[in-house]
């Protein structure tokens, strides 16, 4: 490199969260450079379904972020991105297999409703109006009209393209090897495989590798991978209209177990294939395909939609959700390293929560007070003891 680059903010990671940070920061007039070791959506973003969900979140800070994001996604779609990123405000349908599960689901939805979630009870005999191919014999469900979907890789790419329109630059196939500090310890930029980029602010949007980026600044951030598989079917006509999942999914998401959990999550896509999830395991970065997991996903999907039995699975893919011990992301400035802002650890909700994350990070970078209280998400909230316990649990 002939000379060092200079900008206002370096964003590490061109996944969905990094793209959203770049988009809002560039729109706020900041000079942004995004650096990614691979290219757009090379990590968890490219391995997800693109869910924008409020339905699976209990009242709390994550639900607040989700509701803010839901509004921002609608704005983004309406402004310019809608069709290009396959934005579909199709709604989510959560179904209960028995009365007990239905009661729990209704209670959960009641709690959410008080915080602005729209939720409608669907009687058993009305489920087929929403999903004609749904199995019979279900106890009932709840419909969440705010749930939506995007194609995540396209969403990341288009947000970065739009950011580039405001002057941001994407540097792909470039690995950050070092975080540069001033003598007082504040951020001064990054060293990469191709040179140095100087900036007073660095955003850690490295997703599941966010802990490793934090380590470059000698601070701990216990982001760990939680593996998930997705089955992809052959292209189909619209057999599945909404995102449909079983009520036990919510319990799996919130679980702390390292063991395999699977609960059926089935949805159609704008381009034809049906996506089938969701599995959760803590097995490190093991990419090996697990046939038992795929078998369970297939069986559970057929239980919900018997019509899928003769449909072909064309492929399966694996991804690693970046999770933190309390299942909340780390968003905000790191008090230990002035100039370092974290935006990672969104677990399975990174696509949905990305616009809110990007907007809040941009507000921080611009010196404004974020419109959302980030205290519960502060990156230094994990004590050494809690991190040790977590490491041992793995």
């Amino acid at each position, binding site marked *: 490199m002939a000379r060092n680059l200079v900008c206002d903010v370096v964003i590490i990671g061109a996944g969905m969260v990094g793209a959203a940070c770049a988009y809002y920061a560039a729109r706020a007039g900041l000079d942004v450079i995004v650096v990614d070791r691979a290219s757009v959506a090379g990590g968890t973003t490219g391995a997800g379904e693109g869910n924008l969900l409020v339905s699976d979140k209990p009242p709390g800070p994550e639900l607040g972020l989700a509701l803010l994001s839901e509004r921002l996604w609608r704005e983004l779609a309406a402004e310019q991105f809608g069709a290009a990123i396959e934005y579909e405000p199709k709604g989510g349908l959560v179904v209960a297999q028995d009365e007990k599960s239905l009661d729990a689901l209704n209670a959960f939805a009641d709690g959410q409703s008080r915080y602005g979630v729209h939720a409608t009870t669907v009687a058993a005999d009305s489920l087929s109006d929403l999903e*004609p191919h749904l199995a019979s014999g279900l106890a009932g469900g709840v419909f969440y009209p705010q749930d939506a979907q995007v194609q995540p890789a396209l969403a990341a790419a288009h947000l970065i393209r739009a950011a580039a329109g405001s002057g941001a630059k994407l540097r792909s196939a470039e690995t950050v090897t070092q975080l540069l500090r001033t003598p007082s310890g504040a951020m001064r930029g990054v060293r990469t495989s191709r040179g140095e980029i100087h900036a007073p602010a660095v955003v850690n949007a490295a997703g599941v590798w966010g802990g490793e980026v934090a380590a470059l600044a000698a601070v701990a951030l216990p982001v760990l991978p939680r593996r998930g598989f997705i089955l992809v079917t*052959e*292209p*189909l*006509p*619209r*057999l599945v209209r909404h995102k449909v999942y079983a009520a036990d999914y919510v319990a799996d998401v919130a679980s702390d177990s390292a063991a395999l959990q699977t609960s059926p999550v089935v949805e159609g896509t704008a381009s*034809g294939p049906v996506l089938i999830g969701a599995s959760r395991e803590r097995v490190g970065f093991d990419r090996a395909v697990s046939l038992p997991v795929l078998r369970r996903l297939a069986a559970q999907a057929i239980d919900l939609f018997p*019509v899928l039995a*003769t449909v*072909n699975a064309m492929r399966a893919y694996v991804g690693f959700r970046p999770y933190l011990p309390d299942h909340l992301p780390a968003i905000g400035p790191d008090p230990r390293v002035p100039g370092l802002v974290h935006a990672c650890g969104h677990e399975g909700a990174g696509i949905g929560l990305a616009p809110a994350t990007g907007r809040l990070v941009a507000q921080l970078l611009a010196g404004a007070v974020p419109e959302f209280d980030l205290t519960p998400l502060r990156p230094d909230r994990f004590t050494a003891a809690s991190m040790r316990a977590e490491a041992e649990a793995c």
Partner: protein
Amino acid sequence: MLIRRRSKAASAPRTPEQLVGARPEPAFALHIDGREIEALPGHTIAAALWRAGIMSWRTTRTGGEPRGVFCGIGICFDCLVTVNGQPNQRACLVPASAGDVVTTQAGTGREGGGE
């Protein structure tokens, strides 16, 4: 031997069957979109269609372009066709049987079974 070596292209056989001295078992009929065509025992669906001069039996999902056999060995999935109501069969792999009902496909091949 009944088949003698032929040394000159000028006297070459005019068909593949003549080349290898084939005496196929009796032909049978199958239907494609209601039209009856003749197939030979041992043929795949694709072979039967080629023999009847039919080179395409599917249109693509987005562009509506005609497609037929491309790779001929089951890798490319271009020759997908509906056989006896089962969509997305590879014509180059599925053996033809007497009375088969072959239906040309459009889109995903499952539109009729969808919404």
